[in-house]
């Protein structure tokens, strides 16, 4: 049982390598086994933390500061659990999705490749230069998908479990490389441009973070998060380091105005990849920032800096939502929605920060609320991107204004889209409501009324773009110039399952919230909340 945290990293890694070694179409079997096992192990880890508290493992038996430790507290378990569940859903969806893309003897290759770039017409194996030049090698996006997706999953778990700021850097880099490789899976020009932009931006972010790591080490002489939290970090070098790390991570988490790379990257990837990027990868950088902010640099944050980050979050909500409303393509709309939702996450910083009474319980409330919002966004956004993928596969396009009347053909898809939208809006009963409720409470309690306004207005703006899609789909007149392609049932089921999760987590929030408390910062404040 005590090794479960190791296996949750190793299994996807091993399965990824195996899938790479096997190659071809059978790689998906290994990928699926890996996804199932990782899901189970993630569940076991959550259970372990739930029952026996914080899990710590010293790699190779060496103690810190010399050795490197892995650690899972409630927050890590919470996010690993989310990744496990969302990851399993995405994997099951991806099996069918890439099967439809794989040019096989029984299938028509020209009808196969439908990508998120809105250029569904000019697709097919011809997009791949190798295939053009060699003529013998057939490019199978599905075969490359599984190793990379397993690598991405493993690096997410590395990120959530590492307790060492340099190890975290390695995890971040692995995550970036896997993400970019997945974005360009279909070798389309738009995806390559988006992928290159993403790579450059994320690489820059990593460098800023790494410089921060170096400076912190110069100051404190340790890398372990726990030791750093105990150390008195007050020097100028540490402050500069904190700033560099924060900027680097904000770039990776795509907080406005550092979000420029996100919409193209998230929307031009294949649907299962878009879902993973928006639902999970962005949370990776966010998680790390939250860890450092509230556990390592706790004393360093000043009210003005916190308010400024919250302010950027507020601008992200407004700008992202308005951009989403303006988009004509569904996947871009959903990607801009991610920009806005990331803004919500960062409202947590001023709310849980040093504004007002440092011993007040609202800080802990905001912290849990923000993380619960991250959880709900994970499920809801994955469901939305996968839903867009179904529409794209079936209709060959994702232009919002040509979805008229498609609700009667894809009732479950739009039902799921609506449920996911509810969660993003923060309407009860949904997980998004729980997050919003806690953050709103915190804002009212601490008297930071400006965040109350932003949180509420943001919900209405979200309703704006969700309603655009739904009202198009519910139209009576059907847009007839596209004959829908049959879509495997499993894909639809997964879209619905993820949306349903975002609903169920709103009906029974007590246990996940309790999980978050294990080993959380603000230990002194929790007793106040319990009363």
């Amino acid at each position, binding site marked *: 049982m005590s090794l479960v945290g190791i296996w949750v990293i190793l299994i996807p890694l091993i399965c990824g390598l195996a899938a790479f070694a096997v190659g071809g179409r059978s790689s998906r079997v290994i990928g699926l086994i890996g996804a199932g096992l990782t899901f189970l192990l993630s569940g076991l880890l959550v259970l372990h933390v739930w029952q026996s508290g914080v899990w710590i493992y010293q790699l190779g038996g060496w103690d810190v500061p010399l050795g490197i430790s892995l650690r899972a507290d409630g927050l890590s378990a919470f996010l690993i659990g989310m990744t496990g569940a969302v990851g399993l859903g995405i994997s099951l969806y991806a099996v069918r999705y890439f099967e439809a893309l794989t040019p096989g003897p029984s299938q028509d290759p020209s009808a196969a490749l439908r990508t998120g770039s809105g250029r569904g017409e000019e697709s097919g194996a011809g997009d791949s230069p190798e295939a053009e030049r060699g003529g013998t090698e057939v490019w199978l996006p599905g075969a490359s998908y599984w190793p990379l997706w397993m690598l991405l999953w493993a690096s997410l778990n590395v990120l959530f479990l590492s307790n060492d700021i340099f190890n975290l850097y390695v995890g971040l880099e692995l995550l970036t490389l896997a993400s970019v490789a997945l974005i360009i899976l279909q070798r389309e020009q738009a995806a390559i441009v988006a992928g290159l932009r993403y790579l450059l931006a994320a690489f820059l972010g990593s460098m800023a973070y790494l410089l921060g790591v170096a400076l912190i080490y110069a100051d404190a002489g340790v890398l372990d998060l726990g030791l750093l939290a105990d150390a008195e970090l007050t020097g100028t070098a540490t402050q500069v380091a904190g700033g560099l790390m924060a900027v680097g991570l904000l770039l990776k988490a795509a907080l406005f105005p550092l979000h420029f790379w996100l919409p193209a990257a998230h929307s031009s990837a294949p649907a299962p990849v878009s879902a993973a990027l928006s639902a999970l990868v962005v949370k990776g950088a966010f998680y790390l920032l939250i860890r450092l902010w509230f556990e390592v640099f706790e004393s360093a944050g000043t009210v003005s800096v916190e308010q400024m980050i919250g302010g950027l979050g507020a601008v992200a909500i407004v700008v992202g939502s308005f951009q989403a409303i303006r988009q004509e393509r569904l996947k871009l709309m959903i990607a801009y929605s991610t920009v806005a939702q990331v803004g919500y996450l960062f409202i947590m910083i001023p709310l849980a920060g040093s504004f007002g009474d440092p011993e007040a319980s609202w800080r802990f409330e905001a912290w849990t609320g923000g993380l619960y919002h991250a959880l709900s966004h994970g499920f809801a956004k994955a469901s939305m991107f996968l839903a867009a993928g179904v529409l794209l596969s079936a209709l060959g396009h994702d232009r919002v204004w040509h979805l008229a*009347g498609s*609700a*009667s053909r894809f*009732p*479950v898809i739009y*039902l799921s889209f*609506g449920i996911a939208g*509810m969660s993003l*809006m923060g*309407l*009860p*009963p949904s997980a998004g*409501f*729980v997050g919003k*409720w*806690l953050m*709103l*409470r915190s804002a*009212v*309690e601490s008297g930071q009324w400006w965040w*109350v306004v932003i949180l*509420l207005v943001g*919900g*209405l703006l979200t*309703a704006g773009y969700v*309603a655009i899609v*739904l*009202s198009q789909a*519910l*139209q*009576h*007149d059907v847009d007839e110039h596209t004959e829908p392609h049959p879509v495997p049932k499993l894909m639809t089921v997964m879209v619905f399952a993820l949306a349903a999760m975002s609903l169920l987590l709103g*009906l*029974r*929030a*007590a246990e996940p*919230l309790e999980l978050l408390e294990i080993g959380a910062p603000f230990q002194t404040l929790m007793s106040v*909340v*319990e*009363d």
Partner: protein
Amino acid sequence: MDWGFWLPQIMLFSSLIPALVIFLLRDEQFWLRTSLNLGGSAVKLVLAGIMAWGVLAEGRTYEASLPFLHNQELVLRVEPLSLMLVGLSSVLWFITTIYAIGYLENSPNRTRFFGFFSLCVTATIGIAMAGNLITFLIFYEMLSVVTYPLVVHRGTPAALAAGRTYLLYTLGGGVLLLLGVIWLQVLAGPVSFESGGAIDFLVDDHRTELIVIFGLLIAGLGVKAAIVPLHRWLPEAMIAPAPVSALLHAVAVVKAGAYGIVRVVYDVYGLELSDQLNVLLPLALFASFTIIYGSVRALGEFDLKRRLAYSTVSQVSYIALGTALIGPAATVGATVHLIHQGIMKITLFFCAGVFAEARNIHDIREMSGVGRSMPLTMSAFTLGAFGMIGVPPLAGFVSKWYLGLGSLESNAPWVIVILVASSVMNAAYFLPIVYKGWFGEPHEEIEVVEAERFQVAEAPWSLLGPALATAGISLLAGLLAAWAYSPLSLAEIVANQRMISP
């Protein structure tokens, strides 16, 4: 087995589960869907009967608490006040289901319609049984969402535009309500519904805040209760199919708003505290203005459903008005009108739907002489209309009588003027329809169309039956008002529980 714990939950699930199963069906699976619908609503009806017996005869309270957040539970409770809305929705859901099956059975997207229809009832039952503020909020917002697909069901540009207006208003109202609830909870901790309210202790330190919060809560609820100036979505939403209009107006949406106002005034703030904060007079004034305004606008509408919609705007505010008056009779009038307005208005909407289906009549000017070929429908319509006007011994008379008594009791005689003016205008916009319907000259061409379409006397029984049933109920509710299990008796129990000890 602890029935007090399980009954409220089964009550919810009796419509939630059919809804979820219906979503999985295909449009053609008529019998399965119909038996699910009827089965669910029959179960709900029986459960409502059992709980009514328990509450009224044995004085029991059914309560279920489920963990939700840290120190926050979801509470479902059935006591006399919740029983009123529970009973109303159970009975009317059953009748409306029959009507809807007859009305929609050949139109597209039936699965979607009946699925959301059942969800809508689930949300309403949840609102009725909510035992604390957050449970109420959750079901209230759920209702906003699940009625949207029903409003836009026809998918025409007009329906979509109405849907947008509807969403804008209800989500905006939801935001105000959410803010009010959170603010109140921050001040007072978890707020549960208790007769007489339980937040008096805040009045010394937070007087202004309490007033602002009251305003937020009432504004949020006033959107659904269609209090002017928040009423505009309601006439727009008339574009929806007739069963939806009936449900929106009589049971679900407007009642949710009005019921919420009753809850906030009586069970969150309590009459005493509300009086102390001087918030009741503004509420009474808004309600009075809405009563007059709705009636005036109804006079100017010639589309039958729109006239009925403005009539609803006017009539629902009787509830808010009665709530804002202090005195047992006013409380009785307000709460009994929750039920009476529901059964009367649903009768009228059923009839409007029958006219539209059987004769393609949408405008009241086309109704001339329709009573000769459709005497049953017209009779039901007449009963509903007379009830609305307040003709004794119909249900509407009982409501107005108690409201009038209440206004004298609470030293607000000006309210009588409002009631009389409103009744005069009710008569002015209903009587001409009734008169022309019975005694006007019929349009002949309509007769021919009708004879070809239906082999029956005037309309399919699945449409006519529900209209007659609700008309009968509204007659009985007035005639048997003194019976121990009548809505009036229930309202008296509710009022007794909430009396201020002088």
